[in-house]
């Protein structure tokens, strides 16, 4: 197992460098010159000033040299400097990362737990009215545009009912500390996390339901019944565990996108996360910041892929023992 993880980490590093290189060239292939944008915003768009900016940021060097300098920096965990924001990229990202991870992970857990539970329930009552209700609700949340559900949630729970705060990460100016602050953040988290979670829940629900129904038709379930086992045990031990395999795959794929996948939600709820940072960086041609965000999100994808594969080996002995 340790050897497997080590090998995968080495592979991941190689892939990460490849992704960075590709991103680097893609960004530079896009039209727009960061020096021109900066100069334009400074109100002095004359050629000499732009040239100065270029020289200062190393943008006058050949592209390959720039790439070399950048990759060299990354290897030392230096993601470069955002000229636009006048701050190291790493500082910018890590200031925003916790908020995004908090939001997306909470939403992910909500989606996974509720979705799987709903799927199991629906499959156990297939064709009955409760199955129809669950399936329809799930489809409704999936089919409705996320931002609309988010806006309605704010309208109902924040504006009309005034139960929960409708925007932001914490109460501005309250300066809470310790437990009081955690509670404040949690309250702010409920609406965005639930909105985002309900959207993804539908996918897990449908996947779990279909998978449970499929597995329940397999021969070994009949064997289990022929042993005289109780339906509950058959459901849990034989059907559920086997039905979870595709769900794990799906969850792994989705977990990787947690970093960049919440732009809309972050925008509606004014959540100070990475999604919004990325959007701003794109608009401003902030090369280093963009690359940095791509780097972190790519690293996340690889990390979650690795976790999925490890998890897969834990649940499925065929993969564990065969290799």
């Amino acid at each position, binding site marked *: 197992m340790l050897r497997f993880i080590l*090998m995968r980490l080495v592979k991941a590093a190689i892939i990460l460098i490849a992704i960075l290189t590709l991103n680097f060239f893609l960004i530079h292939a896009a039209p727009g010159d960061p020096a021109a944008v900066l100069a334009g915003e400074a109100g002095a768009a004359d050629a000499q000033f732009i040239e100065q900016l270029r020289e200062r940021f190393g943008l006058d060097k050949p592209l390959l040299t720039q790439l070399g300098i950048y990759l060299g920096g990354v290897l030392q965990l230096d993601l470069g400097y955002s000229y636009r924001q006048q701050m190291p990229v790493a500082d910018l990202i890590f200031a925003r990362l916790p908020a995004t991870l908090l939001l997306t992970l909470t939403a992910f857990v909500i989606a996974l737990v509720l979705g799987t539970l709903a799927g199991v329930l629906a499959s156990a009552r297939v064709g009955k009215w409760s199955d129809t209700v669950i399936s329809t609700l799930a489809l409704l949340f999936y089919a409705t545009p996320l931002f609309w559900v988010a806006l309605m949630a704010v309208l109902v729970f924040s504006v009309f009912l005034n139960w929960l705060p409708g925007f932001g990460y914490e109460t501005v100016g309250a300066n809470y500390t310790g437990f009081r602050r955690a509670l404040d953040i949690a309250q702010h988290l409920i609406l965005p996390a639930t909105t985002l979670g309900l959207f993804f829940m539908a996918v897990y629900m449908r996947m779990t339901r279909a998978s449970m129904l499929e597995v329940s038709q397999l021969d*070994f379930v*009949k*064997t*289990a019944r*022929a042993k*005289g086992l109780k339906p509950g045990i058959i459901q849990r031990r*034989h059907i559920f565990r086997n039905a979870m395999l595709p769900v794990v795959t799906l969850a792994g794929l989705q977990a990787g996108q947690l970093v960049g996948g919440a732009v809309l939600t972050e925008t509606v709820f004014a959540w100070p996360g990475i999604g919004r940072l990325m959007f701003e960086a794109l608009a401003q041609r902030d090369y280093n910041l963009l690359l940095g965000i791509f780097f972190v999100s790519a690293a996340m994808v690889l990390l979650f892929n690795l976790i999925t594969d490890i998890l897969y080996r834990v649940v499925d002995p065929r993969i564990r023992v065969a290799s």
Partner: protein
Amino acid sequence: MTEPVLSIENLTIALPEGADRAFAVDGVNLQLFAGEILCIVGESGSGKSMAANAMMGLLPDLVRPVDGRIVYGKVDLLDKTEAELMDLRGRKLAMIFQEPMSALNPLMRVEDQIAEVYEAHRLLSPKTRAARAVELLTEVGIPDPAKAAKAYPFQLSGGQRQRVMIAMALALEPEILIADEPTTALDVTTQAQILKLIRDLQRKRGMAVMFITHDFGVVAEIADRVAVMQLGKIVETGTADAVLDNPQHAYTRKLIAAIPRLAAGQAPVRKEKTPVLEVESLSKTYRTGGGLFSKPRVVEAVKDVSLQLAEGETLGIVGESGSGKSSVGRCLVRLMEPDQGTVRLAGRDMAHLKGERLRAARGSIQMIFQDPYASLNPRAKIGRIIAEGPMAHGVARREAYERAARLLELVGLDVSAIDRYPHEFSGGQRQRVGIARALALEPRVIIADEAVSALDVSIQAQVLDLLADLKERLDLALIFITHDLRVAAQICDRIAVMHRGEFVETGPAHDIFNRPRNAYTRTLIEAIPGREKELATVG
């Protein structure tokens, strides 16, 4: 006469609306006695499995018994509640199934799956359950039972998995064992071992066994009594000897007549003909897995195989699963690239043709596949399925469809089939379409890969007759790949026995069956179910 352990009285099971008949099981009466093996024989769809599932209370949701009784211990099982049935299942009535691959939970260790039987009936402590599992595995003859107990199903072979299933079924010493085609998915040598195991255990424990099978060879090996089922009804019952030697009902006679006989006659005298296909030193090695850091798994599927096939000749390639026989076929038609060797078809080396020239040459060697359901595109009409090949080789559409119509007649189907879809046909009819499709390109050589293995015995006999007839009329050269030695005995002129990628013995069919020289060939032939009985009757 003693009381039966279980008796089925006038059992009638209704099928959901829209099925091909109203009742899956139609007024069946059966008695099962202690210490006997009762074989229920029938073709697919005869209702034999339904009857067995009804005994266990394991019928599919949409299928319900509507009449009759299943009396066990003086009570009607059909009246029992699910909870009462649960108590009986595994404890009094146990069941084993056809597919040992899928009948075990892939995510659970063998010992846990056996222990579950005790757990379900709240017997023994967890520790003793594990110990019992090893004892049971020992009893069913699994090599290294302690290790097998800790294994996952995928780590065991098909035969070993079926032994695990049997161990599981025997855990609580049930009075009745229901075995639903338990050897059908197994290789012939493994089948012989499992049949012997079931027979031995049944004698040792005095169990009543209800053994469901489609194979009269198996019946001859194992049955005390036989019940023959057709379309939900029992048409004949009797002792095994009586039914096999002196069948009364026309359907039974038809079924028994359809069984391919082992080559007992003389080898036909053949005229010398020019070889149309010459294969020399064919090799194919599979490499699976393996990546940046790991070594690939290497399997030598075909090792240095050479063969010659003359016009109008049928060569059988027989072997067990994994012997490499299908790989040979696939290399010959170039569905797969051979690693080494030459495949000369009418003097031209097929093995190394590429691109357009390979495409042009493909017409002269065609394949018939095993699964008549999966090998025809369900979205294409029969006409297109047959005409597509010739059209791809430049035949005009009209002419190709005319040829398709002629071929349909040739294989014994109505011309109107041209405008219908595959799902409108039975398995046997589909296989005829598959044959017509292979013939459409007027090939010199046809490779039939387990072409009749998925068919019921009576349909199988018809398709074999058709192939023999076509071979005669069109002077076709045929390579017949099969695991079934009886089928090979019936249709092949010469036979090559394949084992672990190699031809271990090649010769005229008659010699292979009557004077096998190789030890493995002998094992294979001795394992054919019903062989001793047949030899005894032929004398």
